């Protein structure tokens, strides 16, 4: 009896931990809605929220893999600046076509990641040192290739990827309100997909003879998901529709969540972070895992570099300054363990959004940037402390 209730309690606490940060995100958002008199829920602000935080989300997704191994990548801010710079040069100075330029830049991101991966995985130089060195190297190279100058303005086709929208369809006026139908439809499609996935997973579970949660729980869970999806898609429909970066972000989140949750390489990353010795003796090539993690981080940095330069319509030597710290903080706020081995992509995304909502909300109510930094620091410190204390209690 007592054993059973203890088990239930434990299961409950795991759930609370998983959803804790999501709840925190919603609470923070609602607090700022009150403080700003609803300003942060306006269609334009919702749009800005996604656009402003897209690169942090992209970087946090890549960074989570590093954090899972108990390490970080300090070079991402500099790599973002460097890849943005060479992309602008390819298009403006060399007259390359935009898709070709993007492809080449993503490729250079992969190469930069491999370059770091060789030192980290095969030469066993601590990741902290390797990425610190590359932070300096690529910041310097950015200044060199740009001659210390801002390069711009970038052509419209380029800018779309950072500041544009998916093609608008069937825009019409309902009274005097413009509604973008693609966004509305995407929201509905997303809702249907959520229902379909849930039904499929439960069918599979019951075919294995596992217990299925009661219907009301499933219904409540789906209802919350559907409300959240449609809240955002409707708000975006009332502005300019779906931002391109939002689509990129969602795609990355889906891919990386699948990778970490459902594939062998993903499991191996957790194993290397949780106990590298045990991982090695279980047949996992720990060095190879480390190599590909940093390669992936390079690719994500290049993607963020393209998106950032597109959004700014120019490449600047100071671009991406401090992004690495935002990405790392996002992972920790999202519940990743500082020692590695645990954390989720969704957590990192939620962590990035918490910081984004804080930034955005504090700007809206007129708090200065100085105060914003203090608050963000306190949130990071608080989130990790609470996480550690709760773990200690469970152990």
């Amino acid at each position, binding site marked *: 009896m007592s*054993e*059973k209730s*203890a*088990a239930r309690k*434990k*299961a409950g606490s795991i759930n609370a931990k998983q959803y804790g940060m999501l709840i925190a995100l919603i609470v923070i958002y609602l607090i700022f809605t009150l403080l700003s008199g609803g300003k942060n829920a306006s269609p334009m602000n919702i749009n800005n929220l996604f656009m402003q935080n897209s690169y942090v989300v992209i970087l946090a997704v890549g960074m989570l893999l590093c954090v899972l191994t108990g390490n970080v990548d300090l070079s991402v801010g500099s790599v973002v600046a460097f890849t943005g710079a060479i992309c602008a040069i390819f298009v403006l100075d060399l007259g390359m076509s935009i898709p070709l330029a993007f492809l080449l830049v993503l490729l250079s991101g992969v190469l930069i990641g491999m370059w770091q991966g060789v030192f980290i995985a095969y030469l066993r130089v601590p990741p902290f040192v390797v990425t610190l060195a590359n932070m300096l190297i690529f910041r310097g190279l950015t200044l060199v290739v740009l001659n210390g100058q801002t390069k711009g303005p970038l052509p419209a086709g380029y800018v779309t990827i950072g500041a544009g929208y998916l093609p608008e369809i069937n825009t019409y006026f309902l009274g005097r309100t413009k509604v973008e139908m693609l966004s509305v439809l995407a929201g509905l499609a997303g809702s249907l997909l959520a229902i379909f996935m849930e039904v499929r997973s439960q069918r*599979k*579970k019951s075919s*294995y003879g*596992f217990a299925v949660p009661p219907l009301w729980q499933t219904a409540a869970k789906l209802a919350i998901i559907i409300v959240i999806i449609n809240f955002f898609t409707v708000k975006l429909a009332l502005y300019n529709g779906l931002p391109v970066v939002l689509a990129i972000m969602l795609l990355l989140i889906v891919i990386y969540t699948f990778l970490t949750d*459902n*594939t*062998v*390489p993903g*499991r191996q990353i*957790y*194993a290397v972070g*949780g*106990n590298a*010795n*045990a*991982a*090695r*003796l*279980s*047949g*996992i*090539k720990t060095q190879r895992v480390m190599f590909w993690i940093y390669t992936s981080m390079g690719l994500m940095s290049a993607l963020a570099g393209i998106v950032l330069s597109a959004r700014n319509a120019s490449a600047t030597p100071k671009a991406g300054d401090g992004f690495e710290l935002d990405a790392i903080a996002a992972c920790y706020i999202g519940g990743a*363990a500082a020692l590695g*081995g*645990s954390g989720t992509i969704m957590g990192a995304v939620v962590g990035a959004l918490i910081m984004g909502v804080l930034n955005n909300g504090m700007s809206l109510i007129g708090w200065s940037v100085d105060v914003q930094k203090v608050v963000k620091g306190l949130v990071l410190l608080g989130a990790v402390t609470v996480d550690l204390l709760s773990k200690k209690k469970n*152990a």
Partner: protein
Amino acid sequence: MSDIILEMKNITKEFSGVKALDDVNLSVERGEVHALCGENGAGKSTLMNILSGIYPYGEYTGDILYNGTECRFRDIRESERRGIVIIHQELALSPYLSVAENVFLGNEITSAKGVIDWHKTHQRAAEILECVGLAEENISIPVSKLSIGRQQLVEIAKALAKKVELLILDEPTASLNDEDSQKLLHIILSLKDQGITCIMISHKLNELSSVADSITVIRDGKTIETLKKGIDEISEDRIIKGMVGRELTNRYPPRERKIGGVAFEVKNWSVRHPDDPERAVINNVSFHVNAGEVVGFAGLMGAGRTELAMSIFGRAYGCNISGSLKKDGKELRLRCVKDAIRNGIAYASEDRKGYGLVLINDIRWNMTLASLPFRFSRKSVINKNDEIVASEEFRKKLNIKANSVQQTVGALSGGNQQKVVLSKWIMTGPDLLILDEPTRGIDVGAKYEIYEIINELAKQGKAVIFISSEMPELLGVCDRIYVLNQGEIAGELSREEFSQETIMKMILAHARKERPAI
């Protein structure tokens, strides 16, 4: 009445319910060399850790009388202040600091306000090092430049710098060659002349019988006897009898033996130390395991059993590995652990927390880790439902006490953790299972269950290598035993020849003809 410097009375110490020491008594006379003998895990080191305050007062019961007053040490500093210094098997030197700095490590000579007085440090260091026969040593070079034997002497110098009255040495000669061992023993005798009392733990019984004034034998956490030079006979045979003389009761499940042909064969296997390619860890070892056979590997700590096992397991240990490995008569070339697993070899580490499990993850996750790529996934995509079914099955079959397979393994008891490790390796479908100390630190009931699992595996025709430091266990479970010493096979015993005395004698005989280390 003789002058007693130390008396430990009725010492009892438990580790999570298991008695490591049970009512142990030890009495040491001033100025003698007192040896502690016993098998691995008998409780010698635990007793010394209590004496030096590593296990603080309150974690054990019983009294310690030192120089006639009762002591309740809370940490190692308190015992050192009273002149009790312990030197552990693993040296506690800081490799890149100089010899002189190491002599005064944690005990620096300072002038006013904590500033180190280098002049005095060097002067005193030279004086002390002279006492341990290191007079000609350059005291400014990093201590890692010295040989292991000389580093051991620096450790003793470090103890002398702390004004030691009672020096405890835990297997001081375990990693030394004969020449260095002799030198060390000589130093110990000269310290004795200076009035320093010495407690020495050692497995090298021939050394003990030549140096020790009295010998206390500990077995299964109990003091068996104390032999005194001049009164009792001190011979190796006499000591061995005390160390192993216990009745074998029915602690091992019976097994029907159906032993097949040679399943695995290792020939002329040699391995060098991964950090020091000059040092041979395994030297020209050959052995074989038959299908359905449980083969034991006996040996003292540091004999190279784990290193041998891990080097076979896809070169997980060592460098410059040479020799051949055959499975069912066919040569295997294993480049990495993955190759080993694919070729049906499994290795369950002696250190299940450090090398076996990912403690923060759950039972299912840990059980499937090694077999994930080929048993629970298709095109790299994991089938979690299959994982749950398989791990539930093992949880029930191996009687793992947990509410579900979602429970974190860090929260399980040692025995249950070990069963998770075994499940993990059985899931890979191995033909050869190497079990390294599978019953270490787990209670008697769980041990019995582990033996049953081993029997079941053998019954299925799998070849099992069973490494253990507990000899009775090897005798109870194995069909054949190889005795390993200093990285070489010291002997092989068939079931009819099994006895602890024979194993001990083999080890000692091999150790005696040991050449100086390379």
